């Protein structure tokens, strides 16, 4: 019983933190602040993965997302400089249209989740051993992912070449 309340409390704190940071990220007018709030959300997501006992996924999240992608964002925001202040939303009309769309979509989805009744009671606190992750990434059997892994490496290579081609000076 004690464990229940602890888990729920940690989750509630994490969820509140993430939702607040996400809302701040889409409403603040300065780009650097928006990127920093995004960083908070990404760290919170890593915390969610740790709560699911997916420690490797949490580590990947921190290294790639919080470490790599946010650095790219900050780099871009600093390069662009003064142009990055998002002064205001264009019109009240568009603002309320966006608000209406997202709130109604959120309500519909929440209703479906609460009444859906997923059969999701197989959770075990075992986590995934590193050896299983390694063999599944490099294996060729069923539920193994060597082809996806290689395709993703080609994609990353193509992205690097493409980014250099796009961003270089003429």
């Amino acid at each position, binding site marked *: 019983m004690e464990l229940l309340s602890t888990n729920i409390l940690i989750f509630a704190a994490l969820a509140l933190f993430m939702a607040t940071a996400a809302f701040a990220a889409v409403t603040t007018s300065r780009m650097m602040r928006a990127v920093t709030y995004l960083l908070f959300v990404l760290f919170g997501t890593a915390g969610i993965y740790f709560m699911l006992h997916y420690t490797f*996924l949490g580590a990947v999240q921190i290294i790639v997302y919080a470490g790599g992608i946010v650095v790219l964002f900050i780099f871009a925001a600093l390069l662009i400089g003064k142009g990055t202040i998002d002064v205001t939303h264009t019109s009240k009309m568009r603002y309320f249209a966006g608000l209406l769309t997202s709130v109604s979509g959120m309500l519909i989805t*929440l209703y479906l989740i609460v009444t859906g009744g*997923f059969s999701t009671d197989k959770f075990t606190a075992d986590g995934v051993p590193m050896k299983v992750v390694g063999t599944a990434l490099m294996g060729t059997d069923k539920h193994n992912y060597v082809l996806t892994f290689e395709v993703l490496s080609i994609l990353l290579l193509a992205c690097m070449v493409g980014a250099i081609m796009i961003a270089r000076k003429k």
Partner: protein
Amino acid sequence: MIVPAEFYLILATILFFIGVFGFFTRRNLISLLVSTELMLNAVDINFAVFNAYSHPEQLEGFFFTMFGIGIAAAETAVAIAIIINVFRNAKSIHIKNLRNLKH
């Protein structure tokens, strides 16, 4: 006892629609990219949660999340290269100055 799966799904839904809201209301290319990242992140949470609570023996959601993170990294790199190039040509990344891209 453990946290019910619905709690994670509710959190992911809230994050996703905050991203949607940002995507509709922000007028700056980098803000739009930040909103997209929020949405992608919420979807990644959903994959991991469904894997952990519904099929813990197969690890499909686990690897979907991992590949999703990798693809998000690639997408962000290219998008930021494009944004910097747009800024170099148009001297602005505000949406209203980018009408030329329409036709």
